[in-house]
């Protein structure tokens, strides 16, 4: 089982790496540029199909279809974002990646994280990217955007990393012989990558259909911040509580960092008037 997934992961990584390398814009533009792009695209599509096969069969339509859709869309958009010739297209593919990731978060029951990701990344950061790209490059693409800087090492390192990820997650697959009854078992089933049986098994925790499970995951039943004593905290309150207890110093430090960045930005945008040669030290 383990080796099967490792080999499959290696195949995916190799095919994907080859595809990505061929799809990247290269400096030497020959007559075969279009051909190489097409070949790369085919390799990448093949890798994506294998990747989808690694995920899970279409055991339950609603549950797995959405997961597979979002997962494949995320990876494909990421590839297209890296290889797109036009920076505006790159930014849009980035938005697509964020949206797909948001969908995956939603399916995993992390609805706050999903909304937060979409608001912060798709709604603000990428829009700012677009704003800057549009403002800066109205006359066409810049020279340094027409070719990848060092496509070979980048592709190799990225896809070796991807292979490590795939292989290591694949080995996490749990024993799925019996039904899942405890939360710990469910957690292990969730973290296992080979969700072929485990996802289906996981529905046994819920007495209803698979779709209800998905809806239930997307919308946890508790929705009060001020929960009763001893009750499990819902996720928004849970995140808040965790941030202000377990990670208080981290949260404070990142706040300070952001504040310093804000001050720096203001200093950069509003340069103080240069001091005159005679009036040294007058300008403050």
């Amino acid at each position, binding site marked *: 089982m383990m080796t099967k997934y490792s080999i499959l992961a290696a195949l995916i990584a190799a095919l994907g790496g080859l595809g990505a390398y061929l799809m990247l814009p290269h400096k030497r533009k020959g007559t075969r540029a279009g051909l190489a792009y097409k070949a790369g695209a085919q390799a990448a599509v093949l890798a994506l199909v294998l990747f989808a096969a690694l995920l899970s069969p279409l055991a339950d339509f609603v549950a797995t279809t959405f997961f597979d859709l979002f997962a494949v869309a995320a990876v494909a958009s990421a590839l297209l974002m890296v290889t797109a010739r036009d920076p505006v297209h790159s930014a849009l593919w980035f938005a697509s990646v964020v949206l797909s990731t948001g969908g995956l978060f939603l399916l995993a029951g992390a609805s706050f994280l*999903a*909304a937060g990701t979409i*608001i912060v990344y798709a709604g603000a950061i990428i829009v700012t990217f677009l704003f800057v790209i549009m403002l800066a490059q109205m006359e066409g693409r810049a020279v340094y955007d027409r070719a990848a800087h060092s496509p070979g090492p980048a592709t190799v390192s990225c896809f070796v990393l991807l292979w490590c990820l795939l292989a290591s997650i694949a080995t996490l697959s749990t024993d799925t012989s019996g039904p899942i009854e405890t939360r710990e078992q469910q957690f292990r089933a969730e973290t296992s990558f080979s969700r072929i049986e485990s996802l289906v098994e996981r529905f046994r925790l819920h007495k209803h259909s698979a779709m209800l499970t998905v809806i239930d995951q*997307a919308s946890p039943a508790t*929705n009060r*911040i001020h929960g009763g004593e001893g009750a499990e905290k819902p996720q928004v309150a849970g995140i808040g509580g965790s941030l202000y207890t377990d990670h208080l110093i981290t949260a404070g430090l990142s706040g300070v960092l952001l504040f310093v960045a804000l001050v720096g930005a203001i200093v950069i945008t509003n340069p103080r008037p240069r001091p005159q040669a005679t009036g040294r030290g007058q300008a403050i």
Partner: protein
Amino acid sequence: MAAIGILIKIFIVANVLMGAVAYLIWVERKIAAYAQDRIGPNRAGSEFGIPFGLLQPLADGAKMLLKEGVLPAYVNKPLYLIAPVIAIIAALLGFAVVPFGPVGPNQVMDFQIAPYVDIGILWVFAVGSLAVYAVILAGWSSNNKYSFIGGLRSSAQLISYEIPLGLSILGMVLITGSLDLNAIIRWQNEHHVWGVFVSPLGFIIFLVSAFAETNRLPFDLPESEQELVGGFHTEYSGMKFGMFFLGEYVHVITVSALTVILFGGGWDLWGLLPYLNYKDVGWIAAIAKLSVFSVKVAAVILFMMWIRWTLPRFRYDQLMDLAWKSLIPLALLNLFATAVVLQIVRG
């Protein structure tokens, strides 16, 4: 079965929304005319004895659908075609978590497309923030200076106004203790206190930011007719333009519904009428709540139109000043004050 029920609900809600949008356009034209001492559309339907031009939306819709779909040769075709679709999808998706009637396990049905969503209001903001893509893409792909400037303005404006919009509701979220829109209505209904009265500053900031988020006057810089010839939708015609229009009005409905839910008590009427308690179940209560809610939403929409025909457009720097120098500090102040008061009250 549950899936079919949900699909039917989505179908009905989407169609009612579209019909409402068609008549909102008629209402807007009427109000525009009245505010300028004109009469407005009053002919369509007079052949069939229907007064006030009430068939005008049909005529408008038929015109939109039958017009030639012009695809300019110089546009970026995929993005040009996808932009209006994004506009309408983002607007409709945002409505998914808006409860327009009673929602609960004991109720006759859930008057909400996606009930029991923990993060209701965050969802609206997440999807609403995607609507800006429609404007940016339309402006960029049109390959036209005016459209482009419209898209640029839109991106800056929407990013800026999302911040006060998000901050302004946090006061109400702190008070009611939930991000779920149903829970917010229930809190107001329990106490018979509307959000306007417990968080008046938040209400004003929310309303102003909502005007900006929906690109309505006085914040309609992305599509200003006078200087940008329509802005981001200059190059669009026929139903592609119609989709932007539909999207904008669905957005207006969503924002008005949010205003009513957050600050107008939802279907609460201070207990003046029966059947308007969150404990009431049954069809009569459901219809009563639905009616009260609809009337309130209609009132907010009328107010938005009234404002539109009253105020002139902001200048661009004024727009940015208002967001960054006035609204955001005020919203932070509101949040801080609410938190302090709540801490004192709750101990």
